[in-house]
């Protein structure tokens, strides 16, 4: 079976199990969505509403109805007493915000971590390496929400360099958009920088012991060229894997960072859906995240082949 097809099947299986699991979990939560949207209604009114919303149907029926709509691009409606709003309306506003935040955080983390990892590997054991490692541990130890608040206070309030909350789309004002995304992106990125740097450093140290590096040195290739052209690529596979897997961590971090910086992203939407027992919305949001997660990891798999000719040749 071609890789692409296998991955597609993988994606569908993951999606099925993730959404089924979410459906099972939400069905086990205490309380009733109807109480959340019509708390003061009479029992008769609530029964009618449950019937209208399909909440009286068995779980497999509810799940089947949802998944068959989801695969056609219909994310369902928010539960409401009078005609629910489509979940898609909110997702189209929120998804770009979260994607931008995660991409900026990931790019920022990689842009800083890769050179830092390469240099510390090359200078392993030096004072600079030790300082960088200590800093990395310090960065790992800071929860992103705490960093977010510290940044907001010192950078936003004391120094007044950047706005502390709110979102502006890039199409409306690119400069303002960047200004508003810097602190959230840094808050999310800092923990990742430490992880990526440490990973790359240890892989690079191992690579720098390889025979082909010794050969390159013997041929008089410059250290810079050895590091960036010969050692970096084979040392990046673990980094790439972790960067893909870290999408989940980023989503988790984005929820709290979005709330702190008042960014109207998927994290905020998820929080809202959980709080208000909007199970259809919750299932659709989780499914979107699951699809995104599997797709990113699929891309990582494809990139393996680009980075390492041995994998490419093995696959062919």
């Amino acid at each position, binding site marked *: 079976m071609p890789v692409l097809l296998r991955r597609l099947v993988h994606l569908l299986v993951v999606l099925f199990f993730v959404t089924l699991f979410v459906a099972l979990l939400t069905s086990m939560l*205490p*309380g*009733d969505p109807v*109480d*959340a949207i*019509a*708390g*003061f*209604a*009479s029992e008769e009114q609530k029964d009618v509403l449950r019937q209208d919303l399909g909440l009286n149907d068995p779980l497999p029926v509810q799940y089947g109805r949802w998944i068959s709509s989801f695969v056609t691009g219909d994310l369902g409606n928010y539960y*409401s*007493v*009078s*005609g629910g*709003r489509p979940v898609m309306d*909110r997702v189209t*506003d*929120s998804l770009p915000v979260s994607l931008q935040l995660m991409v900026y955080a990931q790019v920022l983390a990689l842009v800083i971590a890769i050179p830092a990892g390469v240099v510390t590997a090359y200078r392993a054991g030096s004072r600079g390496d030790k300082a960088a490692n200590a800093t990395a541990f310090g960065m790992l130890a800071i*929860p992103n*929400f*705490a960093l*977010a*608040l*510290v940044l*907001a*206070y010192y950078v*936003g*309030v004391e120094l*007044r360099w950047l*706005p*502390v*909350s*709110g*979102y502006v789309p890039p199409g409306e004002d690119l400069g303002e958009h960047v200004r508003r995304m810097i602190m959230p992106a840094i808050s999310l990125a800092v923990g990742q920088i430490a992880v990526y740097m440490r990973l790359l450093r240890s892989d690079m140290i191992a690579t720098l012991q390889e025979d082909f590096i010794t050969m390159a040195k013997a041929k008089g290739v410059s250290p810079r060229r050895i590091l960036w052209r010969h050692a970096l690529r084979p040392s990046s596979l673990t980094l790439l894997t972790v960067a893909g897997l870290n999408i989940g961590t980023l989503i988790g971090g984005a929820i*709290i960072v979005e*709330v*702190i*910086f*008042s960014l*109207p992203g998927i994290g*905020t*939407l998820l*929080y*809202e859906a*959980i*709080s*208000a*027992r909007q199970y259809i919305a919750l299932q659709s949001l989780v499914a979107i995240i699951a699809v995104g997660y599997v797709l990113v990891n699929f891309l990582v798999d494809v990139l393996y082949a680009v980075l390492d000719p041995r994998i490419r040749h093995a696959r062919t």
Partner: protein
Amino acid sequence: MPGKRPRGLGVPRATRGRGFKRVAAMAVLALAVTACGGGGDDGGGGGASSDEDAGTPTPGGKVIYGLEAETTDGWCLPEAQLAISGIMVTQAMYDTLTRPNAEGEMEPWLAESVEPNEDSSVWTIKLRDGVTFHDGSELTAEVVKNNLDAYRGAYPARSPQLFIFVFQPIESVEVVDPLTVQVNLSQPWVSFDATLHSSGRLGMLAQAQLDDATSCAEQPIGTGPFKFSDWVPNQKLTAERNPDYWATDAAGEQLPYLDEIEFRPIVEEEQRRNALESGEINAMHTSIADTVDEVRTLSEAGEVNDYEPDEFGEVTYLMMNESKPPFDNIKARQALAHAFDFEEANAILNAGIVTQATGPFAPGNIGHLDDSGFPTFDLDEATRLVDEYESETGKDLEFTYSAVNAAATIKQAQLVKEQAEAAGMTVEIVTVDQSTLIDGAISGDFEAQGWRNHPGGDPDLQYNWWKSGSPVNFNKFEDPEIDRLLDEGRTTAEGRDEIYEELNRRFAEEIHNVWLWYTVWSVATAPEVHGVPGEGPTSEDPFPGIASGHPVGYMWVEQ
């Protein structure tokens, strides 16, 4: 024009450290999300403060108002579930038929007159002529009738919830002439005009919005000072000046003063204050004690204007389920009341700034008593009552305390547990999300919870919270004396002070709730922003309460 300092803020306070200590506190608060059910910390005791000497309002400018929460349900008012943030927004776009004056008495607002018959069982609402909605349609008796029917569940296009109970005494609403509506009630209701205000949330919708089956919640059309422009949930709601607004201020100047108002939900408390301090927003509200305290410090430094009335507030309390053990037994309720050490709670939870509540009515309200006879802290008495309960029932006095999973409410729950256990009770804290807390309250699936409710206004507005059998009588108590007093207060025009004072004393005697402290909300604005809390309907003196928000049509910015 220089920014004017607000007047007296009560006892001066030492300026707090604003470096690492504050950042550490911020990290703790980061996990706290807005939870009206759990309430948490409330301000108070600071005395009224405002910038009423700011000078003559100048038209123009924009206010960006930081709200504590988003109203995800939207703005289809008969169906919406609105807390204070939602009511703030609705007051920008909608008008109510009545509005309270400085004493809390109702005066006509969108109506020209609201008059009862002799026994207050029929109310005649005469509307102002020439008022138009933002879509250009006219305010007529027909539209007002449809609105009232929509709120009470008699208009097919809408599916309301809460107001079905509130408006139960309405038998019919009739159009008398194009500008007159008659409301026929099944019983005398002397404070019906207060219900027409309902803490500012009973706005009148345009016919087009009432009939909008798909976007009633997203396309608000009112008669208010600002016209809806745009709403991106969790980001902002913007509204622009209504050039055809019908109202003027007491000096005859056209309202509103501002060109535009933007509401931004910033649920993280510290971030809302940071946004104000950094100039990103220029107005915000809060009821978190630490923030109120910080705002006072900023106000003393001249960095913000702080409006913080000590009248018509809400009350924070422990709500007990009287439909099952242990709180079906008055001894258990008495024990818990005696075990509550206010001084300790004030110091630990409230930065020492709140005042102790002795009843459901905050200062300023009809029925308020400085001393209602509510039990005071007495650990020995609490211990004795616990022993009595246990020997009487043969069971330990133990209960679960449900609290919203947020830093402030958990802290409150822990203190309640500590104080109750010092008297010999056993308390298990159960953390839940806010929906579960409210569901538990509605279904009676709880033993004790922390709540904040009963904002200032006519005490009859609390009728459904305490009436036997009401679905929102969450304590599930059935007290014929309370029922009698509620009915008497509703139907008797004379002697209402005494009626509600008696009701207050009855609450203290039966301990249907353990009253903790009075909430004081604070509205903080940039020094150049003025006009909070506005004016009264017919005079310059405003209704001072802000527990349910305040009018925004009077806000202005120095130009």
